[in-house]
């Protein structure tokens, strides 16, 4: 049904450069909203970053500092119940340089509801760049979503508060 597409070389470089420029200019670790609890991040647990639509691209380092994920949604503020894309770049220590892991996953759950998404997203890689595009994402309810990221042995997660007003 779905086939993995490979971006042409030029497009890949443009995408990588754009992402790095974006990160240098405006990429930031989202501030924790006051109403969300302090994240627990023991060394064995993935880091948790709190994100809001205003965060733009979200930088999510792993707790051991060996990798980080730069995540952005398309559109930046997904609408409730509508499909959207997640663009992720996997970076190395200090969030520098692409980390081209062979395995990648991005999943989202609503811990308060004890369920995940109603879709089965597909991850497509731009080989060698650490860039991944996840298709088929859908937050079908407003509220708190936990987005889990994994690349090889690296893991982190971010919290997303999906507003019903995002229409």
């Amino acid at each position, binding site marked *: 049904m779905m086939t993995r597409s490979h971006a042409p070389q030029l497009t890949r470089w443009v995408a990588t450069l754009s992402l790095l420029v974006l990160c240098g200019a405006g990429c930031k670790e989202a501030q924790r909203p006051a109403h969300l609890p302090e994240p627990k991040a023991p060394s064995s647990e993935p880091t948790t970053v709190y994100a809001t639509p205003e965060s733009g691209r979200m930088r999510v380092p792993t707790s051991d500092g060996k990798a980080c994920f730069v995540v952005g949604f398309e559109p930046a503020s997904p609408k409730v119940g509508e*499909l959207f894309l997640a663009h992720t770049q996997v970076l190395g220590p200090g969030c520098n340089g692409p980390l081209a892991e062979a395995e990648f996953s991005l999943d989202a759950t609503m811990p308060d509801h004890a369920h995940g998404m109603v879709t089965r997203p597909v991850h497509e890689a731009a080989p060698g760049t650490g860039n991944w595009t996840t298709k088929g994402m859908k937050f079908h309810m407003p*509220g708190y979503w936990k987005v889990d990221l994994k690349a090889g042995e690296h893991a982190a997660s971010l919290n997303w508060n999906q507003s019903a007003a995002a229409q």
Partner: protein
Amino acid sequence: MTLPKPSRPTQLRPLRCADVSVGGPARLRAPIGHRRPLLRAAWRAACAVGLACALGACEATPAPTAVTPEELALIQSLSPPPTIPASPSNRYADNDEAAALGHALFFDTRLSKNGKVACSTCHVPALYFTDGKPLAEGIGKVAKHSPSLFGSHFAPFQFWDGRADSSWSQALGPLEAPTEHGLTRLAVAHLMARHHAEAYTAVFGPLPDLSDSERFPATGRPHSLDPAHPEHLAWGSMAESDRDAVNRVFANTGKALEAYTRKIVPGPAPFDAYVAALTAGDATGGGHMKPGAVRGLRAFVGDAQCINCHNGPLLTDFAFHNLGLPGDRDLGRSKGASQVLKSEFNCLGPYSDADGKCDELAYLDPAFEDFRGAFKTPSLRNVARTAPYMHAGQFADLPAVIDFYKSLPGEPQIGHRELVLSLLSTKVATADLVAFLESLTGPLPDEKWTRPPGPRTP
């Protein structure tokens, strides 16, 4: 981890009927003997007003509309009604001739086994395209309530359980359902050839020649669960190319029906005028909603948390939820999700015009854990005109629905109730919520589309 509830907006208390007591302001309570006639008349009038208010007959001064920015954003997300989306799997969706054919088909009782049932039997225009009955009645009793067609084209999945992924493929289901129209796709093809050949040909091109009864029996369709069924055997006796030709006529019949039903879209309601006025800076909302309705709206987006599922401009998330309704043992969405993926009339099927661009279907997870016993959230536009309610017509009126949310009686017979579905506070006035829901009633479509077309073809 639990998110704390958003801070409640400041509630500015409106002047209520109770604020005008039956006894009247104290300073009017002078000894009766000292009152002058004019004052006595005024006193009587005040008493009358007070009593009427106490009985709930009067409306207080407009409720405060100084909503918080957070409330305003939520309220604005519910309005205005959107323009109808494209229908990629039906290239005839916006074809006027197809709509005219669909209009004729919608009211044509010949499209049924007993000649008495049309689409309009269960989707009565004057009832906002519902039938006013708990359970639909076609050839026989149907297990589900007739949903309104208003807003249905916005949903990625059709039917209460989402077993179709377009309005045209949805329309095919009732035609072959034994308790609804009771036909088969072969019978439909013959009826189209007999009664609608000219209009069909003008839109879709020539019909196949169905005159050879050996190649095209009078009736037949697949019965995957009953391979010995005569209709299944008749269908199986046909050449594959002939089955394909019949399937195409059948699909086109659905596409014409969709072209017609796309004329049935929600129009602006008093609520939309209220939101437009709010957005323009008129804190009173232009007076388009009464104070009770405004209180109901603020509860809807606030404490009552209705907006969790009834969100967006059609006041539905088009998602599927298990409410744990009494006595319900239907698998709901978990069955419907599997069915839509297998349907030959889905977006990815050979009769679709979507060229494979079917993201909703492609990424659907039929194994989603909470699909068991879940049914689609209906749009609340025009909801006050579409009683009874729920997928099996469990509740006769809106207060009964709201009472259900205030008590959540019993446990689901299948699956489990949506975990975040908490009891609706009894402090939320049922009458306020009902008043808000009544403000969502918009106009019926142009009369051209709500009455049967001219004399039908022989």
